[in-house]
């Protein structure tokens, strides 16, 4: 079967059903393609001569050059005819945005089967139907029907996370939330009814994609579990995969069946599949993105011993509980290390030095305790990873050094996550500084701990498959 390159990195795109009318699907898709600055753009519409300054063709068969990708912005009943034209033209890939197929009852299912038969054994790769499309952030190619993503054009920057969503609109919403948080994607895919292109195909593509470091999947169902397992086993040897799977309860499964024609299967089998394949299962979609962010910025955990440095005892306990429930440990520091912390003025004399290391009340004038204590902990063999909890918004003093000298902390190749908890005016600025210094920053201490669990699980997996470097 052909690869997904023409689908994701096309140099020539035909928009079938292109329109100059704002608000029409064929207009939104065309505008997105134009703004993506793709080399050859061919609007297809038998009634028009020119749309938005581009020469219009009656059908793909009339286009003079080769077509890598056709975007189908036409009603479901017209799709089979256009697909047969695409086959005749040897179009390499297509995205069927239209709904009205398997998700829409018997007649739609018949239509989908008809197309399945047409493309069986052919080279063409098809995304959808009933999908939002894909966004190749690396190249800046917006191949979606989303009218909103272009509004964020300036904040969407190429990142390292490949995102595969089974829900279209929700996938786009998550994309925008991620962008706002500074979590940048490399590629986003929405597969819709998964008639041809499956999760496994996208995983294979992303695993070879040099700009993708971590893969996130928002999943409702799987069509061929054995195939997904085979691919996951290969992919997770080289890149972490985080999956959130919804539709667990019976009511959840019903909602799914009416959504993308998902087939019901017991959730335990999904857990088994993910575990066997070495994927990390997130409990929610936001958690999945947060975990992927941690995995994209920080190395996996080598052991299970975590150091916590906080300026409030309570949060240290909350994080410790989550870590210990998931096989990690927050060991008491040796006397030697505790003495070092005191002697080197890394903690106040009234703070706790056991682990969690408690720096106590945040005061703007306090010295660089976070930096000094972090460095001492990272230098010992007693911990494999570090969580820094920052309450309030101590922009100067406490945090300025970890921003300035982040390199000195990150070079230990031990993961460092930060939980910054505050709603004070300077919070966003503080978060931004820490993120730019290379640390994933979360508000919620629970989320921070869960992300450390993800780094632990991936490290464990790499050791299991003999890929620990």
């Amino acid at each position, binding site marked *: 079967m052909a690869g997904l390159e023409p689908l994701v990195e096309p140099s020539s795109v035909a928009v079938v059903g292109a329109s100059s009318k704002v608000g029409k699907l064929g207009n939104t898709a065309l505008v997105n393609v134009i703004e993506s600055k793709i080399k050859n753009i061919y609007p297809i519409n038998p009634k028009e001569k020119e749309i938005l300054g581009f020469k219009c063709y009656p059908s793909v068969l009339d286009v003079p050059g080769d077509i890598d990708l056709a975007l189908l912005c036409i009603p479901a009943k017209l799709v089979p005819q256009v697909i047969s034209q695409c086959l005749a033209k040897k179009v390499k890939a297509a995205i069927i945005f239209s709904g009205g197929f398997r998700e829409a009852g018997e007649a739609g299912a018949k239509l989908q089967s008809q197309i399945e038969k047409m493309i069986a054994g052919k080279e063409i790769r098809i995304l959808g139907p009933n999908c939002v499309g894909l966004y190749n952030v690396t190249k800046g190619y917006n191949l979606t029907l989303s009218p909103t993503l272009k509004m964020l054009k300036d904040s969407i920057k190429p990142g390292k996370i490949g995102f595969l969503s089974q829900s279209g609109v929700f996938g786009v919403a998550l994309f925008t939330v991620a962008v706002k948080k500074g979590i940048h994607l490399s590629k986003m895919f929405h597969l819709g009814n998964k008639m041809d292109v499956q999760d496994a195909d996208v995983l294979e593509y992303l695993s070879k994609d040099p700009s993708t470091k971590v893969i996130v999947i928002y999943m409702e*169902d799987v069509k061929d579990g*054995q195939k997904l397992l085979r691919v996951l086993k290969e992919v997770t040897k080289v890149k972490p995969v985080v999956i959130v799977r919804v539709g667990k309860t019976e009511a959840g499964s019903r909602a799914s069946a009416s959504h993308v024609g998902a*087939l019901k*299967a017991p959730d335990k089998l999904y857990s088994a599949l993910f575990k066997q394949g070495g994927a990390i299962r997130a409990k929610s979609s936001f958690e999945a993105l947060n975990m992927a962010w941690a995995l994209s910025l920080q190395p996996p955990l080598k052991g299970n011993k975590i150091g916590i440095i906080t300026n409030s005892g309570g949060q240290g306990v909350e994080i410790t509980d989550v870590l210990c429930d998931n096989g990690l440990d927050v060991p008491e520091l040796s006397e030697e290390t505790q003495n070092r912390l005191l002697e080197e003025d890394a903690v106040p004399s009234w703070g706790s030095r056991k682990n969690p290391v408690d720096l106590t009340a945040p005061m703007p004038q306090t010295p660089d305790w976070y930096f000094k204590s972090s460095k001492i902990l990272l230098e010992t063999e007693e911990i494999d990873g570090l969580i820094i909890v920052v309450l309030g918004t101590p922009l100067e003093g406490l945090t300025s050094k970890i921003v300035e000298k982040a390199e000195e902390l990150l070079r230990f190749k031990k993961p460092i996550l930060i939980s910054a908890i505050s709603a004070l005016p300077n919070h966003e600025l503080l978060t931004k500084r820490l993120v730019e210094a290379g640390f994933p920053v979360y508000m919620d201490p629970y989320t921070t701990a869960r992300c450390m669990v993800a780094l632990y699980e991936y490290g464990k997996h790499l050791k299991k498959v003999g890929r620990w470097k």
Partner: protein
Amino acid sequence: MISTIISKARKEGRKALTEFESKEILRAYGIPTTYGEIATSPDEAVKIAEKIKYPVALKIISPQILHKSDAGGVKLNLKSPEEVKSAFKEIIKNAKAYNPKAEIIGVFVQEMASPTIREIIVGGTREPQFGPVVMLGLGGIFVEVLRDVSFRLAPIEEIDAYEMIEELKGKKIFGPFRGMPKVDIKNIVDVLLAVSKLITEQKEISELDINPIMVYPNEVKAVDARIILV
């Protein structure tokens, strides 16, 4: 041998294999089962029992009777020729009363597995989206209540089998427990690997249920088994 068993069942229009047939298939894959032979008369039952050594268990073998206990078709812990003879007669009587149309092949006389609270269930199924699947669960009286089970897609590797055991909430019963020495987990791993191989290779089998398997410190033994064809 396996194909003979399956084609015989097919010829007779059966989807369910008998316990005897199911155990033959398990043994072909190296899964230890309680030993036994089929008797068609009380005297023959005694002869087999003497060979196996008392105590023995007697179970009805009929393609139409899948829930043997419900039909009064199981007698356990029989210690003498007299007990075996009367159990044989009672089982036949009960089976005929339970289902007059049931074809009775005979009575399965088998060694009595020594009792232990360490019981497990191992199963294999074929699922539409997942293909062959292996299941491991804690057995015994609370199996329905606790549902302490773990799954993997077949075929599994040895490490998967160990992880399946590790996933059981009640895995501690395999360690030293109430004065009993710990069990050799490798024996459970071997059963899981065998079931994985079986459900992967035998495409005509849709469901396989070994319940219970007795787990002793140095061996395991399948006491009852059921196989359903696709």
